[in-house]
């Protein structure tokens, strides 16, 4: 009896091992057999060529750690990442699991079940109507009415994040002005309602909006950048270029940089110097400026297509002598900002020229934000004019003491 049961299990496993579902699930099916089968039954997920990593992230560290001490990059993924328009039938954008199994075992086409649920929930109808009305008003650029409709939808379902986000967006579009900033152009972020391009009044520093997103940060290349994991960043502004010496001096500060020039990045400054300057700027503009966090910096540092040399100043194009010749450290110098191509999001010199201070303290990944003390090492990103190309990789992490001034350290502004 026992022998026949064992033979049955072996047969089932051998059939399962050959199944296309398990092959498509790849390495995950070694442990998560049940979940893979759930995902492949009564679901369009498998037909859409998705697999576990599509929702849960690459999770390289989780795969490598057989004791399950490292969790997947996105343990609880959000359905909205792919289903941006929400459910095609109910228009519901959250609580997908009230109808669907997380891995889609329940049949979403079960009309009887759906009708029972919607009939039992009048707030759902109210929500749906108001969201639709809000979307209609948004299309007509009537922000006051759109805001009202979204706010009513929020009241119908207070836990619904989507309605709250849309309400905030409509409010921002209704009154786009922000303290200390003047808007450049007419482009706005559809999701958050923030203007895409702004300038700090009186100082002239241009900032670009980086929309909210879940970004995979880190790299398997270096121990300090492992594991690759997903971090959500809210929308934020980042200065288009590194802070220049002219901008630095506009607040009455003296430039400490050895290579002088109005359009050159300010360098040879410590993290503490940058904080003091930002505090002065905030006082003057009533703004809420700061340095970017490490995750924000990496989110914004998406290199453009093409050779690195076209978009970055680094060792190969900043030397004053012949390549390969004996050189002193001062044979390499920073260059004026924005003289190379911008990156994918429009930022200049994210890689190379001067390395940039971040707000974050240096901690082992996964990324978490913590205020830190005055002695904690602060993260430095982007590589500098004297660096070789690997230090310019968007994921490469470096750090320095907050009081340290190095000739290749500068910063850019975030808000």
């Amino acid at each position, binding site marked *: 009896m026992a022998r026949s049961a064992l033979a049955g299990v072996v047969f089932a496993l051998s059939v399962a091992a050959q199944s296309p579902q398990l092959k498509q699930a790849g390495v995950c099916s070694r442990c998560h057999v049940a979940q893979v089968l759930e995902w492949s039954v009564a679901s369009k997920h498998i037909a859409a060529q998705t697999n576990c990593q599509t929702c849960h992230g690459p999770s390289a560290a989780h795969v490598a750690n057989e004791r399950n001490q490292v969790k997947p990059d996105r343990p609880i993924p959000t359905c909205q990442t792919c289903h941006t328009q929400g459910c095609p039938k109910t228009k519901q954008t959250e609580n997908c699991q009230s109808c669907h199994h997380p891995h889609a075992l329940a049949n979403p086409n079960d009309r009887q079940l759906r009708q029972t649920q919607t009939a039992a929930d009048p707030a759902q109808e109210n929500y749906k109507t108001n969201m639709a009305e809000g979307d209609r008003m948004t299309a007509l650029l009537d922000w006051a009415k759109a805001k009202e409709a979204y706010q009513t939808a929020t009241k119908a379902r207070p836990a619904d994040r989507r309605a709250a986000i849309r309400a905030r967006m409509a409010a921002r579009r209704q009154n786009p002005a922000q303290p200390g900033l003047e808007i450049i152009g007419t482009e706005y972020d559809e999701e958050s309602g923030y203007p895409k391009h702004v300038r700090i009044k009186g100082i002239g520093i241009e900032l670009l909006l980086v929309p909210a997103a879940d970004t995979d940060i880190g790299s398997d290349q*270096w121990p*300090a950048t492992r594991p690759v994991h997903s971090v959500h960043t809210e929308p934020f502004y980042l200065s288009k270029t590194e802070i220049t010496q002219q901008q630095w001096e506009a607040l009455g500060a003296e430039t400490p940089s050895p290579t002088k020039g109005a359009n050159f990045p300010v360098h040879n400054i410590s993290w503490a110097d940058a904080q003091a300057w930002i505090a002065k700027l905030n006082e003057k503009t009533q703004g809420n400026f700061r340095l970017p966090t490490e995750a924000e910096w990496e989110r914004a540092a998406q290199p453009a297509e093409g050779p690195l040399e076209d978009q970055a100043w680094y*060792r190969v194009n900043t030397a004053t002598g012949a390549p390969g010749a*004996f*050189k*002193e*450290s001062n*044979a*390499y110098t920073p260059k004026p900002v924005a003289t190379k191509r911008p990156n994918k999001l429009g930022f200049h010199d994210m890689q190379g020229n001067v390395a940039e201070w971040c707000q974050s303290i240096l901690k082992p990944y996964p990324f978490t934000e913590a205020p830190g003390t005055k002695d904690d*090492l602060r993260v430095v990103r982007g590589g500098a004019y*004297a*660096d*070789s190309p*690997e*230090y310019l990789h968007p994921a*490469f*992490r*470096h*750090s*320095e*003491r907050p009081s*340290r*001034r*190095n*000739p*290749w350290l500068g910063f850019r502004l975030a808000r």
Partner: protein
Amino acid sequence: MCPRSTRRAFLAAALAARHSYADTIPKIREIRRGGMIYRQLGQTDINVSLLSFGSHTDPRYKKKVENGNVLQEEGQTRRDRLIARALDRGVNLIDTYENEGQWSPLAKVLKGNNQRQRALVSLCRQFPQFVGENIDNAARLFGHVDLYRIYLGEGKSVDAKALSDWDVLRKAKQAGKVRAIGISTHDEGMMLSALKELEGIDYFMFPYNFIHARADYAEFLPEAARRGVGLIAIKPLAAGSIVKMDPKAKQNTSPERDFVQLYQAKYRPLLPSVVADLTKSLEQLPEETLCQAALRFVYTRPFMTAAMPGMFEEETLEDNLAGLNRHLELSRAERNVLEAATRVAQSTNQRWLPKHYQWLDQRWQG
């Protein structure tokens, strides 16, 4: 210790410092293989042979070039042969400074065969090159760089140039171009400043011999040991001065300087009578030369990772290895314990080896 201190004051300070830190520092993890001891370098995963090789330029074969000195052909051949021999005898750390023409011959010797490719390469920045470019050049030339250091001169604290150079070294280590980064200096003040100012120091290379041990580094050594930093002794024979004092050493040896000195801020020369007193307190073993005793002194310090004397002659290498082998020999107490155990076994006619080793007993009896 001020340069004008009296002999009495010097010896008093020396004897007071004698056991102050050595006894309290935990011993470094070490392994023994093929007649050589390898010790863990600080908190890295690198094991360094207790006798390491400082490949200086032999002054007899020196040739001046635009950016430093190189060896003439004969001198180069002698050094290549000596390095190969040292590697074959278990020495695994070869140190050289960066200068025009210094690295390429060493890279050629190390790439000679697979065994020698396992050697650890220790390199140094030397002016006027940019350190970042040097590291990349070294990685291309050697295929790997295990230890890379910068030299700090004298002064009250680490200057801005050294701080920025150190930043480059840290980046290189993070990127995996270098396995361990360190400092070489002759100045205790600078060592303390480096410990305070520089992040992530893996090792120090500094002058250390039985004379220094009595008078210097009372502040630095406990702090370095507390932080788990690797310590490599350069000048373990006081730049050849101890060799000159050794009646059994080869007579034509020429030290860098004729007088014994303390390698500190002002290169303090020591009176011959002070040196004689310290030498007497060295406790030489029977038939041991002064050089061997001096090296054995460094080998037996629990906090030192390695001793790195400069070597120009094969005899010197053998002499230095002999000092190490003497250290490897069993002590009289250990021998007594073994002999007593043998006598007990013989008198009781019992097999005293564990079961899986009893075939050895049969072989001996046979």
